[in-house]
């Protein structure tokens, strides 16, 4: 018997975003014919507002890896990269990207991606970025601009750090963007882009904070990865992104007013049984299956750290048109994985309290040391500080070999039982809603 999969429910904002992403890929595909220059760059610390000042297109290798992961293409790409001498131990985003390039550089939507004219290396919160771009530079032999963003080792941003990043922008990054694009830098154009970013950031934060309500109208992890899409990638600072977040906010406001829970691929979530904070990126190759393990049990993620890798807007940061370069520097310095471990733990603790979470779940990613190294201490500390149960599961970003559904499901079920017991003081809890 053939089973027809249920149609996935999509909100208007999701459709809008889908069109935005598809539109960017279309522009990339025709970039050479259209005479557009292309910058490849990373999500954390990305300088989209600046890139836009030079009429350049933005191609993000991480996003290509994610999109390919969602389409289950990355397994083959990773094996291709490993065949070419890349270690099985290193980041699978890198290998998925290099494997894709080795196999013809066909993008997630099936069209050839253009060679970048500039590699804009924003070295923010992840050592691997530096090597990744050296590997890409070796392949493309194109111009590379390196923006070294110092790490917040003491949990603060110093004037020295801001000054260092601004100087690099002024003396290295902007001159290279000018040279490659042939467009002169106009700081007023940057200010306009930043003003649009700040408007979108307001709406984005409102959406994230809506999860403080009971029931939460959003899932701030599985849904959250869609919500961060425009603001973390090639659209921050565009009119499209501003409109997207207005649209999203209106949709969430409606759900909030109606007392509805999040939208899932299977439709509206019937009942909220568990409120979780999640630390770590999701697995992309089995994203839907992973999400289903949560919503089927009534588990809603009310706050997540992964949705802060491209900026901690909920902690008050806004791009500031009055201080454009300083603001970009502060943005880069403030991304989640650029914060030291004590700051990360403080943030998670804050989320646990503000979002009235039942517990913390860590999805530890095999190939992401930036996130993963130290997570077992994070777990201990959060349990100690909050008295709430934590759980630890392991998977990978885009390597399907490291997603074990049975193991993860088992752990999650045990964890939900533990939450029930802790919440009920050891008493039995009501059966879940049908």
């Amino acid at each position: 018997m053939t089973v027809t999969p249920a149609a996935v429910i999509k909100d208007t904002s999701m459709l809008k975003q889908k069109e935005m992403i598809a539109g960017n890929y279309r522009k990339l595909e025709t970039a050479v014919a259209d005479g557009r220059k292309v910058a490849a760059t990373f999500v954390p610390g990305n300088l989209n507002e600046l890139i836009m000042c030079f009429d350049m297109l933005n191609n993000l290798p991480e996003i290509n890896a994610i999109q390919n992961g969602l389409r289950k293409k990355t397994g083959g790409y990773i094996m291709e990269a490993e065949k070419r001498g890349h270690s099985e131990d290193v980041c699978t985003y890198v290998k998925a990207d290099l494997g894709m390039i080795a196999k013809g550089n066909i993008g997630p939507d099936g069209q050839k991606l253009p060679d970048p004219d500039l590699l804009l290396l924003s070295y923010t919160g992840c050592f691997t970025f530096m090597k990744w771009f050296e590997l890409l530079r070796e392949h493309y032999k194109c111009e590379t601009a390196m923006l070294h963003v110092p790490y917040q080792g003491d949990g603060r941003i110093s004037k020295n750090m801001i000054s260092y990043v601004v100087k690099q922008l002024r003396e290295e990054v902007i001159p290279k963007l000018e040279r490659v694009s042939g467009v002169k830098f106009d700081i007023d154009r940057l200010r306009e882009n930043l003003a649009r970013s700040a408007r979108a950031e307001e709406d984005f934060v409102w959406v994230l904070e809506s999860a403080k309500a009971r029931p939460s109208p959003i899932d701030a992890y599985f849904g959250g990865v869609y919500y961060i899409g425009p603001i973390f990638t090639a659209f921050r600072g565009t009119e499209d992104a501003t409109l997207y977040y207005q649209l999203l906010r209106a949709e969430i406001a409606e759900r909030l007013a109606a007392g509805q829970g999040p939208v899932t691929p299977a439709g509206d979530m019937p009942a909220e049984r568990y409120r979780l904070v999640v630390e770590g990126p999701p697995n992309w190759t089995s994203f839907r299956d992973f999400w289903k393990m949560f919503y089927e049990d009534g588990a809603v993620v009310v706050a997540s750290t992964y949705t802060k890798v491209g900026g901690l807007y909920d902690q008050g940061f806004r791009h500031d048109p009055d201080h454009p370069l300083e603001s970009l520097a502060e943005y880069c310095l403030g991304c989640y994985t650029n914060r030291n471990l004590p700051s990360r733990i403080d943030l998670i603790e804050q989320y646990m309290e503000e979002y009235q979470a039942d517990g913390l779940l860590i999805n530890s990613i095999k190939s992401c040391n930036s996130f993963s190294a130290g997570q077992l201490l994070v777990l201990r500390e959060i349990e100690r500080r909050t008295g709430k149960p934590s759980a630890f599961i392991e998977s990978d970003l885009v390597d399907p070999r490291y997603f074990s559904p049975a193991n993860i499901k088992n752990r999650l079920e045990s964890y939900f039982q533990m939450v029930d017991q802790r919440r009920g003081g050891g008493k039995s809890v009501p059966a879940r809603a049908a």
Partner: protein
Amino acid sequence: MSTTVTEIIARCQALFDDLNFTYAREWKAAVPGRIVVGYMPFYVPRELIHAAGGLPLGVLGGGEQLEVIQGDAYYQSYICRIPRSTIELGVTNRLDFVDAMLFPSICDVIRNLSGMWKIMFPKVKSRYFDVPQNFSDGVGGTFYIHELTELREMLAEASGHAVTDAAIRASIALYNENRALVREVYAFRARQPWKAPSAEVYLLMRAGMVLAVEEHSRMLREYLDAAAAADRPRRDNSRVVVTGAFCEQPPLNLIKSIELSGCYIVDDDFMLVNRWEQSDVSLDGDPVANLAEAYLHNSANTSAKYEPDLAQKGLYLVAAVKRTRAEGVIFASPSFCDPALLERPMLQRVLAAHDIPFIAFKYAENSGQMQPIREQAGTFADSIKLWSTP
């Protein structure tokens, strides 16, 4: 009476085996007010620690001797071993006399360990020590001078007295002398590797992680004299450079196994901090600016450092091969080491373009099984002799 190689190496071996760091404890206890500052690979400006009246103590993990029990509870299986054995050293009070810990910007694991140390050992001053990846004087240089100044202030606070320019200059002079001797040992080994076996040179350099610099320099001088005088048989070994081992250290047996398999190690990157600055740091003018200048323009290459010029990528390894007349390169990297393993394919392509043969394997600091290493290195040595020699 002159000291023999055996005596010198026996002392180094004892220092290497001592995971309670008795020498450093006694050094600190000998004079009130002394401080000990631990640091992890690959580089910190030891001159500043010395100028603060401190002993820089290289913390290079627990090696093969240390049984890691508690440290494993802090890390997933897919993270390298050095952070877990370092935590083991910490939680078992082996580092309880250390006043401050420095964590250089080598990778995300060591970076995150800096934050873990702050939480786990709140009484110890812990600092993530950032170095610039921009090498312009006015950009990266200015940033780095500021970082060095902050470190100087932290050390002054720890030691209870100001770290003066004069003291820094005096320390730079001592470390210049030490680095020159280290370079001399390496050059001696490259000339006559049968007279300076790699396990000996390794232990000699490891001693520099623990000993006061003045004492280490004395030891290096004595070794150079003793090794030159020693009569040792010359074998028909292949000459190799070992690279990729700049953080988590290989077991001593691995180094011995490479040599036993028929390879003379004529260069390596085991302890880069010993020869980070490649010539003397200037003693004129502002000593902190001089340290920054040396870092930007006169320091070793490693995969934790960005190479701004594609044309220069990996050429330092080719230069090392030529300088030491090596016949091949062994990539020996710790499992799960992002810097070494991400860098490796790029370096291998550079070597291939220069017709330099290479092999690669991984290890952990507690790897016990050396037979596969010996077979691989032995086959490599044979293949060099058979196919590469004109």
